[in-house]
């Protein structure tokens, strides 16, 4: 019975419907594995055994009755930035370490309606601010491929859980690469849809003009299955877009003949790890075999993505995180004098160092006399970057390159140098600034056996085609079938 346990979402749906396994059996076995892996990986903040098994029993009943929704009985996990009614939601911060969400996020409700079973909440960088999952109040997550290395961030717990075959899929959120970079570093798929396709309602806000819900899975097909349940208009998010419903898996099987792949020279320059460069070249050769052609494109302003992001995201964060004042929810200091002192002590105690740095950066760029020089300037350069992509998509359908400049780094290697840490997101940030979709897919391993991801970006609302392009690659390669040693032992 080992097979359905480590199957993909599509595989588990088939096994559950064929009654090869019950959801209670599947969920219980995965909970055992999650609990066994927790001391090693620290991928979860909260594990909800009782709640999960109750949902699994309900799914089994629906499957027996023949009225089960599309993903009935499939166990998944949610990043702990997404609100889950009645279940602790912490953002991996001391500030919210005892916070129980009063309602479900829109994407959480969508996946619940689709029948998924929620096993728990995954660890993350505090308030999604980080690229290594080392800023969590609950301690770092470890990479299943080598536990001395980071899994990436900020959605590091979700990535590690999927890579370690603890769940077939998990949600994430992507503000500057927080889905794609950890997907790359853990050898799985991570999709950031077009901004506005998935509602941000119930996603605890970091940078509202960039925050995008998405998901991790091992295959592009599974990403499409989850996106079907997560997408859709939601009047509770004023930036949620009204669009016709679509099946994001409808084009998976389309051939790639005639596909034009844009290669920005800016993604293939100095500073790329040689193993990463070789893996991406090999992946591009595979695409040419599948019938695609490649064309050089120019994104001259994309190198400014990191400085633009580190103005806009902290500015929005400093505003969004002002709500954590120790009055209505969250941490309140034990000892304080007047109201101002209560605010200052509660926030000083409740936030970690990286979150404070970003709030202070944002406060500075928005403060009197600096707004035009920083915030307005960054928004203008954001436009220049978006214009680069508009021009590039006149020449190509997809843009490909490495997701991150290098594979995973050792825990502790970059914690003292925020700028080096920020540069990890050099290739991922642009898609957040423009709002267009992007996916990271497994594309090989480095000489140490650490995964390498390839990023595929495409134009607004082309998720179905993007997943098709990723899926066809996965049909022709087996990178996504490789499992970390710890999983091979657990499944044998």
């Amino acid at each position: 019975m080992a097979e359905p346990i480590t199957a993909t979402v599509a595989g588990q749906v088939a096994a559950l419907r064929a009654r090869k396994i019950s959801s209670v059996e599947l969920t219980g076995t995965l909970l055992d594995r999650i609990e066994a892996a927790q001391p090693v990986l620290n991928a979860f903040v909260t594990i909800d055994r009782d709640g999960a098994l109750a949902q699994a029993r309900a799914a089994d009943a629906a499957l027996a009755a023949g009225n089960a929704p599309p993903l009935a009985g499939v166990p998944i996990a949610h990043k702990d930035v997404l609100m889950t009614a009645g279940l602790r939601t912490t953002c991996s911060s001391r500030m919210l370490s005892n916070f129980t969400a009063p309602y479900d996020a829109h994407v959480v409700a969508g996946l619940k309606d689709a029948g998924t079973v929620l096993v728990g909440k995954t660890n993350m960088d505090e308030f999604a601010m980080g690229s290594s999952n080392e800023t969590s109040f609950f301690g770092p997550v470890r990479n299943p491929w080598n536990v001395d290395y980071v899994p990436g961030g900020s959605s590091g717990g979700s990535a590690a859980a999927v890579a370690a075959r603890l769940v077939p899929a998990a949600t994430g959120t992507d503000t500057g690469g927080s889905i794609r970079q950890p997907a790359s570093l853990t050898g799985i798929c991570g999709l950031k849809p077009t901004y506005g396709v998935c509602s941000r309602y119930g996603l605890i806000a970091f940078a509202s003009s960039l925050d995008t819900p998405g998901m991790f899975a091992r295959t592009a097909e599974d990403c499409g299955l989850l996106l079907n349940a997560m997408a859709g208009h939601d009047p509770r998010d004023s930036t949620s877009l009204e669009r016709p419903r679509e099946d994001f898996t409808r084009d998976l099987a389309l051939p790639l003949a005639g596909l034009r792949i844009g290669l920005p020279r800016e993604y293939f320059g100095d500073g790329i790890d040689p193993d990463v460069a070789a893996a991406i070249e090999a992946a591009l050769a595979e695409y040419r075999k599948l019938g695609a052609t490649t064309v050089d494109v120019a994104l001259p302003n994309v190198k400014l993505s990191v400085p633009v992001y580190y103005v806009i995201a902290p500015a929005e964060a400093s505003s969004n995180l002002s709500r954590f004042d120790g009055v209505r929810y969250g941490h309140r200091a034990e000892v304080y004098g007047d109201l101002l002192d209560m605010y200052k002590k509660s926030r000083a105690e409740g936030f970690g160092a990286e979150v404070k740095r970003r709030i202070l950066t944002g406060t500075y760029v928005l403060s009197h006399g600096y707004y035009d020089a920083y915030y307005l300037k960054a928004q203008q350069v954001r436009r220049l970057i978006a214009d680069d992509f508009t021009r590039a998509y006149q020449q190509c359908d997809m843009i490909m390159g490495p997701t991150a400049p290098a594979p995973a780094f050792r825990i502790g290697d970059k914690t003292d140098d925020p700028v080096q840490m920020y540069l990890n997101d050099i290739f991922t940030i642009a898609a957040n600034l423009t709002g267009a979709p992007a996916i990271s897919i497994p594309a090989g391993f480095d000489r140490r056996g650490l995964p390498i991801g390839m990023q595929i970006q495409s134009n607004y609302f082309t998720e179905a085609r993007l997943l098709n392009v990723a899926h066809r690659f996965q049909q022709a390669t087996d990178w996504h079938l490789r499992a970390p040693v710890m999983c091979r032992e657990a499944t044998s």
Partner: protein
Amino acid sequence: MALTLADVHRIAHLARIEIDAAAADEVHSKLLAIFAMINELQAVDTTGIVPMAHAQDVMLPLRDDVVTAQDQRALYQGVAPAVDGGLYLVPRVVE
């Protein structure tokens, strides 16, 4: 436009985050490095470029001016640090 130590104390006050001298020094050195990176933007000519505040150029939707919210005070105050009689408790602000 170099950020000074006094700026760090000023913005920490604006952000309502208590900061001691040692922490301010540490934050100052890190912010200087971050702003050295951010200041690359100053070299870009953005004359006449319309700022991009948002990924989609759409108008914010309007809804009818009717009450839609339900009374959820008890639910929401259930997670508050200190409440009494439906009110959030804070230190006295009016003498």
